[in-house]
């Protein structure tokens, strides 16, 4: 039950309706973008509910139970309530920066999905610099966080913003190096090629088998990228009250909240495409494999959050530069030797 033919059929229908090729392209691209955006919004709502239920069951309690069966509509209620909240802009705030911060964080979180292959042929546009594009876009969110930290003119927010800048910049380097290991083996940066390269041995020739160290480095750097515990220093509740999103209320806060969960999904999606063989897998349709693996990765990230304490800022930096980076170089050398030996 592949989904790709359906989109192809819609495209042919548009052509048969007599639209010119360019116009049909435009309409189908916009349609696809709207479809992916709404799919992700629904997914983000599901993830918020899923995190509350998983955290509840890890902590031996029930989690949301009152709205619908097992609180299924809880996040819908949260979103509706956030719609009604008053949207406060502090008088001392730097208006423009304060207003645009959530917009940037929100759009960058969604912009990464253009190149992610949801299934066989299910990719919005297969750029040949796919993985580079994703890394560039996800680092854009730091600007949003720093703008939020600076814009709200609040000491806690400023500290949160500075911490997020320091953290994401220093964890960007090991992240890129671990992905570079895979790019060296597959030889191309396009996501579809990466996934295609892992389709050997009946769909189980995953990169994780050849580069386990790369996968571990990626996961650690990705948790820091998505601001998740043990690296959730920018919005450390116990130290900085609510970190950078302290002055945001109503829909602006909802955008930050959704962006955080979408970021988490992006990071897991990259992990699946690059290391866990994307949509490769026997029997089941390709997009089901992709969704299963990504949700498994999201579960691991959530598991981290409810078990680990939080690192201190200087330990965070030390860990990134003194431990993760050397390991990443070792991984690169190992992959280089592996690639030569495989040739």
């Amino acid at each position, binding site marked *: 039950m592949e989904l790709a033919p359906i989109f192809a059929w819609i495209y042919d229908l548009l052509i048969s309706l007599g639209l010119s090729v360019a116009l049909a392209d435009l309409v189908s691209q916009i349609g696809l973008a709207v479809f992916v955006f709404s799919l992700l919004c629904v997914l983000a709502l599901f993830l918020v509910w899923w995190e509350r239920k998983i955290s509840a069951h890890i902590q031996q309690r029930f989690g949301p139970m009152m709205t619908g069966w097992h609180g299924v509509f809880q996040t819908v209620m949260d979103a509706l309530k956030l719609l009604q909240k008053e949207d*406060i802009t502090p008088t001392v705030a730097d208006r423009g920066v304060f207003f645009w911060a959530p917009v940037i964080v929100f759009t960058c979180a969604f912009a990464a999905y253009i190149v992610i292959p949801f299934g066989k042929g299910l990719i919005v546009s297969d750029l040949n610099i796919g993985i580079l594009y994703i890394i560039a876009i996800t680092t854009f969110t730091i600007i949003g966080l720093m703008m939020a930290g600076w814009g709200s003119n609040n000491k806690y927010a400023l500290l949160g913003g500075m911490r997020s800048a320091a953290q994401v910049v220093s964890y960007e380097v090991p992240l890129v190096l671990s992905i570079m290991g895979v790019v060296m083996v597959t030889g191309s940066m396009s996501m579809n090629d990466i996934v295609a390269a892992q389709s050997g041995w009946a769909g189980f020739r995953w990169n994780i088998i050849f580069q386990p160290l790369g996968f571990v480095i990626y996961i650690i750097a990705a948790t820091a990228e998505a601001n998740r515990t043990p690296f959730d220093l920018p919005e450390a509740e116990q130290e900085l009250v609510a970190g950078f999103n302290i002055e945001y*209320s109503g829909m602006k806060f909802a955008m930050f909240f959704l962006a955080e969960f979408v970021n988490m999904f992006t990071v897991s999606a990259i992990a699946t495409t690059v290391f866990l063989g994307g949509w490769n897998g026997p029997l089941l349709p390709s997009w089901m494999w992709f969704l299963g693996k990504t949700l498994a990765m999201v579960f691991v990230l959530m598991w981290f959050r409810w078990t680990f304490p939080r690192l201190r800022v200087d330990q965070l930096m030390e860990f990134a530069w003194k431990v993760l980076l050397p390991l990443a170089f070792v991984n690169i050398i190992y992959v280089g030797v592996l690639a030569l030996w495989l040739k």
Partner: protein
Amino acid sequence: MGLIKKLPVYTEHIPGGSLVTTSVNSVLTMAQAKSLWYLLFGTACCAIELMATGASRYDFDRLGMIFRASPRQADIMLVAGTITKKMAPRVKRIYDQMAQPRYVLAMGGCAIGGGPFYYDCYSVLKGVDKIIPVDVFVPGCPPRPEALLQGCLEVGKKIRTLKLDEWS
């Protein structure tokens, strides 16, 4: 937010419009009632009971209430414990910082009317409703977690009865 408040004026004129507003009204107020994010304002003994209510046996999360540390994102302020005169201006300030439709639940005797510190006490504010409007009072010193949960449900019921343009 402004638009939603003016909604009843427009839809009244269309035939059957009131049906729309009541259904929208009930959905919006249900959303508020079902997801009250509480701002923990625990000062004294009631704070320990509040923590016990947040723990696994009497879980707050069942009612969809999660703990938000910043007043901007909180809907309901659980004033749990004794409010002294030195603390009163801070309580007022934090209440003003909360975003609208906000509610207050006064938990425990001290927050309702000074509690055991009513007589012979020169430094306790005799009841938090002297400085901020309180929606629900939960008596007890400290009240049992079940009483607190019931208080939160009462706040939900009270929200359900509000009309669209009557929000605080």
